[in-house]
């Protein structure tokens, strides 16, 4: 358990530091970097405690279940590989924090910088210590996101933003592929636990999914580690502050791909496909990037391409699928982390102290900044692979392994290309040192400014360079135990016998190495001529290609969206109805097309036929006369009345009551809205369009009529209604089965419905509340009376009648509400009736008079209604019953007699409040807007009258 705690603390520490730094006030640079450094150092100390057992071969792990249904555990594991990478991440992280403290200028957002840096450190630690591949993916995505923040740290620079976006697009896209690969890998291995997967290499390689897994995982690794052809993001990421580049591109971000290749080596490596793809991609990247690096002029750009090249070397070594090659890769990871971080920091120092990173303007700096020159030259020599430095040993081992791999059946291909790559590495390394520090200054201005920085700035790189030297001089003492443990973790078996030394006698590797050094020196000697030749060739601009591809995708997506999602409601509605009509036809054809069933019909009475004819005529009139808007409202109300009568006829008294009261409210609403809308606007549709729409409408109507007919002439299937009928009285305590269904059996539906209604009421309020401002407000102010109306705004007869009607209607409402459980009525109907009573007051006495006497807030009523209904439901849970279970009891009081109290009535109260609130909110708000417009108009007319009077 103690180990588990250590592991979790180790990963959590950087995240906590990031949070703490982000919470601190801006401007406390020392505090920001201090916390970051303390977190890194603390992590290192924790890691050191684990080092001894891990190097001894143990692999401490801890696991807490997170999402068990997905196989996602918060599992951490530290073996040799994890230990080495965690050490690099924390160690170089610490040095970078110190360097950055001196590098960043005063007034820069150090809080944001160090918080992002710690976030990134935590994500990297998560990747290398994850014991579950799904968890690894989570951290993998986090590195992409946090590196985006770091690369784009200087937000004011366009190249920083573009570089960050490109890095995110490429590594994020690769991350997407990796998610697919990892999930498939987990399925092929029947586990998402990393240790289990590593033991099931044979099972995975035998799986038919293996080629897909390999392809997807490799895309993820190659994008992250900037392998050809995904390499182009890395040079553009150099727009980041130099400490970020030193961190991301020496030991962390770009090494994540290499780490994952090494991590999954026992599972994926060894097959023909793996060896061919990984080796050739690594080889091409190594040679190509080394050649480009020779001809770059920006210090950081040279280092960026050299990083790509060195990553190519590592990928190639892992691609060999040989144990000794994996060992060489492990050693080179250590070497590269040391010399590359040192070189990035040196480049940062040069930039900081001379004001330029253009190598063509620098030179002879050894005189001006001797300390930096010594550090950078030694680091560059290690990069070139010169003895007696660490880089020499790993490069020798690499060259020694090359003849063992015959790519495409050609045994000489890999050694020759590797030697060419090594030659160019020597070339750019020597050029970096020679053109920067030796010879004559090319430009006097930066040279005059140059001087060695404070020790805090060169100290970290000096330490790293010392490490590079010691890795060459005493490799067995310093690195052998770690390299052995790491290699064992990579290959999943005890490490092979190895001997790290500068001198192995004269062998092929030494000969190739000597050729590379000699040819590299030649490249430096003839550099000017080669540069001229290089610059005469036209090169592809990866950034422009990337931007063009992005722009192309953007345009295509826009076009596709407009094509699929036309911005015309008419066309979309037409398409929707056409599809539905076709589906109905298809269903009718598939069902045999027999419309009339065998169920006997009920002969219709004469009044019913007359009502039916009225409905048909009113519908035709609505369609025909749709432009005479007030007249249409009368036709609509005829239809509503006939529908209500139909409900009365067909044994649905509740529905009839609801329909008739909704009808009144709807017509009032439309009247109020029409007051402000155009009354009889000109015709818009062309004749052909009307014919087309008419044909579709008639087809749709015929089909729906046919379906209704087919349904009505057939017997219904088995229904759950028998249960409702049988249990309404004994279970729900009410005889009105419809009401009991609403407030009891299906109360959850009702709760949803009143919430929707409440939201609609609030949305209407919001729409109208804002209408008084802006363009809408101006148009409201210009509103003109355009209807003939009574000279008396509030006729006395109507006012008096409505005031007498109010208490009567309220009584009816209360009566309908109270009896609703047993007789037709209930919350919905009562709310509508009461709302009509109040709306009548608005109509008769005007908005202002009524509003002043209104003692309730509609918003609160909606809220209380929903809350009461919910509380009723939750109340049932308090008594251990399911949500919204109702209960009832009979009581008796003197004088009144026996009566029933049901919890469902409380629920119905909630329904009442919400429906009432929503209806009142919509109509009262609308009438207020109309009133305001009318008032503005009246004021304007009064002003006009006054003007013309004298």
């Amino acid at each position, binding site marked *: 358990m103690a180990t588990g705690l250590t592991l979790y603390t180790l990963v959590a520490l950087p995240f906590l530091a990031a949070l703490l730094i982000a919470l601190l006030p801006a401007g406390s640079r020392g505090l920001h970097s201090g916390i970051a450094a303390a977190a890194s150092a603390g992590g290192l100390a924790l890691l050191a405690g684990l080092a001894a057992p891990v190097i001894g071969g143990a692999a401490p792990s801890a696991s807490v279940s997170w999402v068990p249904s997905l196989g996602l555990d918060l599992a951490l594991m530290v073996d040799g590989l994890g230990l080495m990478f965690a050490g690099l991440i924390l160690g170089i992280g610490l040095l970078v924090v110190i360097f950055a403290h001196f590098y960043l200028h005063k007034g820069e957002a150090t809080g944001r910088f160090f918080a992002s840096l710690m976030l990134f450190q935590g994500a990297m630690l998560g990747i290398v210590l994850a014991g579950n591949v799904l968890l690894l993916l989570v951290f993998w995505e986090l590195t992409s996101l946090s590196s985006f923040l770091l690369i784009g740290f200087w937000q004011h620079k366009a190249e920083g933003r573009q570089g960050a976006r490109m890095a995110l697009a490429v590594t994020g896209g690769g991350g997407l592929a990796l998610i697919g690969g990892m999930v498939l890998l987990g399925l092929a291995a029947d586990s998402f636990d990393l240790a289990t997967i590593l033991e099931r290499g044979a099972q995975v390689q035998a799986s038919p999914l293996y080629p897909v897994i390999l392809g997807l995982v490799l895309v993820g690794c190659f994008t992250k580690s900037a392998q050809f052809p995904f390499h182009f993001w890395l040079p553009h990421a150099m727009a980041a502050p130099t400490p970020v580049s030193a961190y991301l591109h020496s030991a962390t971000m770009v090494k994540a791909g290499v780490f994952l290749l090494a991590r999954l080596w026992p599972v994926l490596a060894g097959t023909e496909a793996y060896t061919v793809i990984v080796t050739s991609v690594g080889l091409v990247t190594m040679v190509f990037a080394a050649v480009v690096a020779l001809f770059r002029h920006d210090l950081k750009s040279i280092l960026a391409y050299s990083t790509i090249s060195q990553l190519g070397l590592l990928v190639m070594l892992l691609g060999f699928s040989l144990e000794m090659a994996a060992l060489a890769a492990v050693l080179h990871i250590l070497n590269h982390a040391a010399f590359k971080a040192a070189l990035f920091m040196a480049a940062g120092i040069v930039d900081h102290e001379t004001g330029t990173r253009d190598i063509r303007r620098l030179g002879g700096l050894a005189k001006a900044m001797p300390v930096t020159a010594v550090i950078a030259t030694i680091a560059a020599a290690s990069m070139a692979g010169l003895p007696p430095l660490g880089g020499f040993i790993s490069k020798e081992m690499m060259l020694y392994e090359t003849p063992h791999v015959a790519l495409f059946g050609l045994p000489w291909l890999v050694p020759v290309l590797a030697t060419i790559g090594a030659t160019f590495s020597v070339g750019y390394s020597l050029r970096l040192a020679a053109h920067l520090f030796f010879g004559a200054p090319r430009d006097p201005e930066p040279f005059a400014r140059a001087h060695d920085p404070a020790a805090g700035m060169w100290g970290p790189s000096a330490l790293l360079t010392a490490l590079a030297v010691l890795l060459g001089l005493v490799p067995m003492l310093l690195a052998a135990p770690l390299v052995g443990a790491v290699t064992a973790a990579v290959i999943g078996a005890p490490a092979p016998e190895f001997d790290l030394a500068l001198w192995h006698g004269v062998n092929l590797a030494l000969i190739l190495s000597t050729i590379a050094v000699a040819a590299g020196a030649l490249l430096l000697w003839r550099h000017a001529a080669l540069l001229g030749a290089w610059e005469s060739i036209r090169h592809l601009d990866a950034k422009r290609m990337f931007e063009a591809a992005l722009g192309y995708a953007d345009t295509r997506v826009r076009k596709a969206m407009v094509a699929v999602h036309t911005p015309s409601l*008419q066309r979309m509605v037409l398409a929707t109805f056409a599809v539905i009509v076709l589906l109905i036809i298809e269903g009718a054809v598939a069902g045999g097309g027999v419309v009339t069933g065998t169920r006997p019909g009920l002969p219709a009475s004469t009044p019913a036929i007359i009502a039916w004819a009225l409905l048909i005529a009113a519908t035709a009139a609505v*369609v025909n006369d749709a432009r005479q808007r007030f007249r249409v409202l009368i036709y609509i109300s005829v239809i509503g009345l006939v529908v209500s009568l139909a409900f009365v006829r067909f044994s649905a008294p509740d529905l009839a009551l609801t329909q008739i009261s909704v009808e009144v409210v709807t017509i009032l609403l439309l009247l109020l809205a029409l007051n402000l*809308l155009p009354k009889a606007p000109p015709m818009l*549709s062309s004749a052909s369009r009307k014919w087309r729409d008419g044909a579709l409408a008639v087809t749709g109507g015929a089909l729906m009529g046919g379906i209704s007919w087919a349904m009505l002439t057939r017997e219904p299937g088995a229904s759950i209604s028998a249960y409702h009928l049988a249990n309404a*009285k004994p279970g729900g305590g009410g005889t009105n089965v*419809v009401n009991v269904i609403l407030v009891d059996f299906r109360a959850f539906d009702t709760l949803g419905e009143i919430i929707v209604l409440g939201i609609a009421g609030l949305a209407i309020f919001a729409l109208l509340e804002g209408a008084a401002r802006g363009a809408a407000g101006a148009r409201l102010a210009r509103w003109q009376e355009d209807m003939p109306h009574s000279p008396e705004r509030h006729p006395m007869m109507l006012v008096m009648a409505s005031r007498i009607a109010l208490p009567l209607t309220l009584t009816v409402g209360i009566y309908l509400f109270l009896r609703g459980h047993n007789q037709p009525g209930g919350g919905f109907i009562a709310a509508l009736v009461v709302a009509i009573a109040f709306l009548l007051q608005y109509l008769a006495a005007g908005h202002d008079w009524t509003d002043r006497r209104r003692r309730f807030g509609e918003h609160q009523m909606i809220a209380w209604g929903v809350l009461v209904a919910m509380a009723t439901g939750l109340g049932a849970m308090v008594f251990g019953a399911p949500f919204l279970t109702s209960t009832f009891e009979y009581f008796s009081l003197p004088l009144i007699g026996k009566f029933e109290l049901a919890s469902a009535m409380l629920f119905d109260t909630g329904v009442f409040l919400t429906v009432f609130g929503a209806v009142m909110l919509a109509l009262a708000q609308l009438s207020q807007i109309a009133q305001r417009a009318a008032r503005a108009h009246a004021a304007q007319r009064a002003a006009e009258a006054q003007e013309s009077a004298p």
Partner: protein
Amino acid sequence: MTYEFLVASAIGVLVAGGIFLLLRARTFQVVLGLTLLSYAVNLFLFASGRLVLNRPPIWDKTVTEYTDPLPQALVLTAIVITFGMTAFVVILALRSFLETGSDHVDGDKVPSDENDGEKGA
């Protein structure tokens, strides 16, 4: 003529009118179309319980036959929700008219209030 035929044909006619109006260009016509279609849908839902005369679903000791109460409960809430929806669409249309000066469903393609002011007063 049977009640079944009356209801089925009424549903058909309402749907036809509703579709035609929903395809028109003015917001108010679309609202009317929506209203017609809602009548049709509510009637159709109700009809799925079949047409039964004089047997309201009010439980009584002496009565054994009732009409199906479930479609009625569903339609009851549907009627209220229909009102909520209609009200929202009407207000949306009103606001969009006030903002743009046009009551065309696709926005301000056809301004329609130029002859509006002259008719009044």
